């Protein structure tokens, strides 16, 4: 059984709503509303959901870019928002990020060797030849020629820039890398290169990934565990194989059926209508009920927040209509 590296427990993050000069806002944006998950060592946990579901907010909390309103995040057992001094620096080294847009995440005025070398200079006080050797190694790790170290970001294509961003993330030998839509800005043929690289690096360095994506095919390809979010809540969480073969929550089912598959013989089906609800004023009860095909005017869905429960081994969901296999196993 692999050890949990990162544990998020009951995370809540509320933001003040839109305000103006005269009036402070009284509305609250419930970006994340009680989410728990854990990333095991050496594995990939994927967070899936549509825009506004709170997946990036979770990543920002993990990266210490936001403080949670409630709940806690533990890394190797320690609450990350209480770390200080040496421990805090250690945490910052252990957790790195690769963002969606390699055009804005690299400083256009810095040479590639300085971009990749900066964390090494700051955290490890490396310099001179030792720094150059390490930067050279990192460039090789991500499949770039070492002579490119003297170039500037604009001299690279999108895919190569994403490799530079990955090299920078690898520089401090992190344990966890947060990947926020790492390939959605890239072309199809370049995506495969980057996805393969990420898989190789995970095996080589025993990395854990927290992958944020809206692309269910990429998630299936990359991850070990998957969590599906809808308007600030986790609606289903399972091992990847379970999630794709024994889907339980109607939202997950709808997401999977809505993907246009690259096969003319598997038609896409539309099982839900309507728009994603707003985190400012989420629907009562189950937040998915206005769009849910299984809702059928049942009062419980409209009025009660569904309980987050384990319905089979390592398979959680929050839905009133899903029968628990755990219970039936007990009855038998």
């Amino acid at each position, binding site marked *: 059984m692999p050890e949990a590296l990162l544990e998020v427990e009951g995370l809540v993050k509320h933001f003040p709503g839109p305000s103006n000069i005269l009036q402070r806002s009284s509305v609250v944006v419930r970006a994340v509303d009680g989410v728990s998950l854990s990333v095991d060592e050496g594995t990939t946990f994927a967070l899936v959901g549509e825009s506004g579901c709170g997946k990036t907010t979770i990543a920002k909390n993990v990266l210490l870019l936001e403080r949670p309103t409630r709940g806690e995040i533990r890394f190797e057992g320690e609450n990350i928002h209480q770390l200080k001094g040496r421990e805090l620096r250690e945490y910052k080294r252990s957790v790195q990020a690769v963002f969606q847009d390699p055009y804005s995440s690299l400083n256009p005025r810095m040479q590639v060797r300085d971009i990749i070398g900066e964390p090494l200079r700051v955290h490890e006080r490396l310099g001179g030849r030792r720094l150059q050797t390490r930067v050279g190694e990192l460039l090789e790790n991500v499949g770039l020629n070492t002579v490119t170290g003297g170039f500037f970001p604009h001299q690279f294509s999108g895919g190569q820039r994403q490799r530079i961003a990955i090299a920078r993330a690898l520089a401090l030998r992190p344990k966890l890398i947060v990947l926020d839509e790492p390939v959605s800005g890239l072309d199809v*043929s370049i995506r495969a290169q980057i996805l393969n690289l990420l898989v190789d690096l995970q095996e080589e360095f025993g990395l854990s990934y927290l992958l944020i994506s809206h692309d269910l095919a990429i998630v299936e390809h990359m991850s070990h565990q998957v969590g599906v979010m809808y308007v600030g809540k986790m609606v289903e969480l399972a091992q990847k194989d379970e999630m794709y073969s024994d889907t339980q929550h109607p939202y997950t089912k709808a997401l999977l059926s809505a993907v246009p598959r690259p096969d003319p013989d598997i038609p896409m089906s539309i099982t839900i209508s309507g728009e994603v609800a707003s985190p400012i004023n989420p629907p009562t009860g189950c937040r998915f009920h206005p769009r849910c095909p299984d809702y059928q005017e049942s009062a419980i869905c409209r009025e009660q927040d569904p309980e987050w429960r384990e319905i089979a081994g390592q398979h959680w969901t929050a839905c009133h209509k899903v029968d628990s296999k755990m219970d039936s196993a007990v009855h038998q």
Partner: protein
Amino acid sequence: MTNSSAQQEKSVLLDVKDLQTHFFQRRGVLKAVDGVSFTVREGEAVGLVGESGSGKTMTCLSLMRLVPRPGSRIVGGEIWFRDQNLLELTDAEMREYRGHRIAMIMQDPQTSLNPVFTIGDQVMEPVKLHLKQRGAQALERVLEALRSVRIPGPEDRLRQYPHQFSGGMRQRVVAAMGLSTNPELLIADEPTTSLDVTIQAQFLDLIRGLQREHQTSVIWVTHDLGIVAQMCDRVNVMYAGRIVESGEVRKLYKEPQHPYTKALLESVPIMGNRRRRLYQIDGQPPDLRSIPTGCPFWPRCPSVMDICKEQYPPTTHTGGDDFVHCWLAEK
């Protein structure tokens, strides 16, 4: 999704022949569209697939004669729309086609709607301009268009501005504008890239329904092989400003002829298909200012031969309207 023999009997609506659109820059000539030929039959949905810079958007802008000026120009070829070569029309004559018989939905609904006019005014514009309708008649037409794209409460939504619409709804408004004049050809340039999966599915379903109902021909521009598989009867695969392969969708997905098409299809992760490694095409698309001689794909091609580096492969017909440009197929 009609079978190819039935499709063949339909007459050709659009016939593009050896289209060339170039950008003229200080550093040289950029061949964005470098000899593109394809046909669209009546009621047919045709996909233009390719990566960024492959020339798909410039091809569409050329069809509309909307290439950015100054800087780029259509330098050669013919665009036959029924019996008329669009490139021989005057600008005034072209306006009769653009937005009326040929409509286009652009990628970003944020920028294709004017923020200071109401939705009603904007959908009304093509109705007034092209259908010459006024007053209550025009209004009814606008409402009908908004209803056809399933915008709830169109009577109230008319008076609202684009910012009051969600991304998905905005894209429906753009579709309503395009379809309000009952065009014969609709060009959809990546209309769903900014939409969420479930919203995208609804939009695709909507357009497919309207297309079948009105027998509109559609050109789908996309990099998403899933959308093409779901929406198109035919696919044209573009690489470096050329169409390298064209085929009926089922046939092309089952038996791709061109190595680039094969590689593209194998490089996307497919749900339910667990491969730990994806097929990857090494390298990257060429710089369009210095396209390699011969076949532009040869530096990345796994089955490159000597002749590929010297001469561009001729058209090999592979049945029906299908063709491929590859020396492998030529043998």
